[in-house]
């Protein structure tokens, strides 16, 4: 089966596009919001106002499109690069900033928001996503669906395999989105696996598999939406491979010049998802420079407010180190807590 695409890099729509203009605007705004934050985050990091940060430039459609397929009832399970998906699913911007400042308040996501924390140890989130999906069967009136992200590199871990196998065996309502962005730090996908069509793994597990143009927000959204609907209907898990590209460095500490030809990255940058969306919206008379400028003003205001909120968070107290190890301080934690000035 071919790669799912609705909007070409040039902005042409081949055939019918089953999204309303309103939906397209919503998708574009969410993607643009993510892009705005990502660009500013890199700057903030350089200014020392953010810690090490993994940019997602170029991957906005893969993340936002998939996240848009969820309702508030559904859970989103990110790796560490899914800031765009997390924002789209409702993580407040101030919280995102605090998180990337490594501030304790950044780690406590809001109660009620169905979002697991960002995951640093690669692939370990996927078994959790499967368990969480099964839990919905016991609890929810209408079971929730879980959408979990992972990178191309992450597919090499044993946990990826175990999670997909468990999901298939239990027909769990979970959607796995692999963002195949070509790189795992310096390792290209061709050195990561023997068959770079990650979607081909689905057959072996006995689950649905789809490869989509991950830079086409219509494709990622519609594909995820279908997969979520199937999961909700009890038809089991789906593996979505979203083909995209890591235009930016791995993190703000990385220098990709050491291991790749940056001309290749620039070529891929031309295929990034926002321009083509603007073109489609423009053709429908639904977007123009004025609206773009207005959006930017909104986003700037939102960012400034979030920064102010984040800046106002009190400094971490040393005693916080031993809090939340157990539900209550154990005897060793209590001693430590006192030594650390806890009161």
């Amino acid at each position: 089966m071919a790669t799912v695409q609705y909007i070409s890099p040039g902005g042409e729509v081949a055939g019918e596009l089953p999204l309303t203009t309103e939906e397209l605007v919503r998708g574009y705004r969410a993607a643009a919001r993510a892009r705005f934050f990502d660009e500013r985050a890199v700057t903030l990091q350089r200014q020392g106002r953010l810690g090490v940060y993994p940019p997602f430039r170029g991957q906005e459609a893969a993340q936002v499109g998939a996240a848009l397929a969820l309702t508030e009832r559904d859970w989103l399970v990110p790796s560490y690069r899914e800031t765009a998906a997390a924002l789209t699913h409702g993580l407040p911007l101030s919280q995102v900033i605090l998180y990337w400042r490594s501030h304790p308040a950044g780690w406590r996501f809001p109660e009620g928001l169905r979002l697991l924390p960002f995951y640093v140890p690669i692939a370990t989130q996927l078994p959790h996503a499967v368990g969480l999906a099964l839990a919905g069967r016991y609890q929810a009136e209408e079971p929730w669906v879980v959408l979990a992200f992972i990178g191309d590199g992450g597919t090499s871990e044993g946990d990826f395999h175990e999670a997909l196998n468990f999901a298939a065996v239990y027909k769990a309502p979970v959607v796995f989105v692999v963002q195949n962005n070509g790189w795992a730090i310096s390792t290209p996908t061709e050195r990561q696996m023997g068959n770079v069509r990650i979607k081909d793994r689905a057959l072996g597990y006995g689950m649905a598999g789809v490869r989509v143009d991950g830079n086409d927000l219509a494709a990622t959204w519609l594909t995820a939406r279908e997969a979520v609907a199937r999961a909700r209907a009890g038809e089991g898990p789906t593996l979505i491979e979203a083909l995209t590209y890591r235009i930016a460095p791995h993190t703000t500490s990385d220098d990709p010049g050491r291991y790749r030809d940056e001309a290749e990255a620039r070529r891929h940058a031309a295929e990034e998802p926002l321009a083509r969306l603007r073109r489609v919206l423009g053709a429908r008379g639904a977007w123009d420079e004025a609206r773009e400028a207005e959006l930017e003003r909104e986003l700037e205001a939102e960012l400034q407010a979030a920064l102010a909120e984040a800046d106002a968070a009190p400094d971490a107290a040393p005693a916080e180190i031993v809090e939340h190890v157990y539900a209550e301080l154990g005897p060793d934690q209590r001693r430590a807590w006192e030594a650390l000035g806890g009161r």
Partner: protein
Amino acid sequence: MAAEARAPVADARQGMTMVQAVNDALAVALGRDDRVLVFGQDVGVMGGVFRATDGLQARFGEGRVFDTPLAEAGIVGLGIGLALGGMRPVAEVQFAGFLYPALDQVLSHLGRYRHRTRGRFSLPMVVRAPYGGGVHTPEQHADSPEGILAQAPGVKVVVPSSPERAKGLLLAAIDDPDPVFFLEAIKLYRSERQAVPEGHFAFELGRARIVRPGDAVSLFCYGGMVEVCLKAAEVAAREGVELEVVDLETLAPLDEATVLDSVKRTGRAVIVYEAPRSGGFGAEVAARIAEEAIYHLEAPVVRVAGWDAPYPPFTSVEHHYRPDARRVLAAVREVLE
């Protein structure tokens, strides 16, 4: 065997074995809380390789008691996800020696989740695993990895030493708001029968117990080593030497107060465990004594443990590896000299 398979809950007059007590605890927990789920390799139709889950699937259905694929990281990871979704997962790992593939989930997540998310998420989950030697199991089926688990802050480690304690502690572990490893000594599964109260009851986690008071030497032990120490104490008593046997029961968080109190009274400490000696959990007990009770010691601390080698896969000599009363008594003599 077939009869036991159908009726793991023993005749009340005869008492229960430890594996029956575990089965009973699971049945009670499944019965009183819909959120409790029991799963693992071969725990469903077959009822587990030791029959610890025997009859539970028939009684509570495939939704509550189910088999998993053969993947330990997946099992523990699945449990974490279930706990995040509001369930009370009780996972079985077939043998503690096969817990190792799941250690990433343990060390990266089980103990960290509450801490990392500042209390937003917690993992009220139990992982049960049979551990330890003494019954000629095949290679790697006799491992004792409690010392590794006890290095994961945020995880509790509980090791029962009798049928009654097993039931009450397992029920407490299932009710606990934090993740608990529950290690069941294979050697004890059927070695002893004991009257065990019916229905729900729970012992407090985090408390060591003096199972035999004495004044000459404190023996610190847990799980399968408790019966070894009690036997040693019996022999010593015949010679008029009263050994105090302290069952640590919860290794993490350790009940330091009871340990120190005992050693301060007796002035002598022998620590008994079956994992390899170096770096094992007994080192932590010795360290606490060296830190807090040194002025009360009248003799060096002695550890009686597995030798610094893997548990021997050639089982004809395993009784030379696993501490027995003879070795404990030799250590007692050493500290009494």
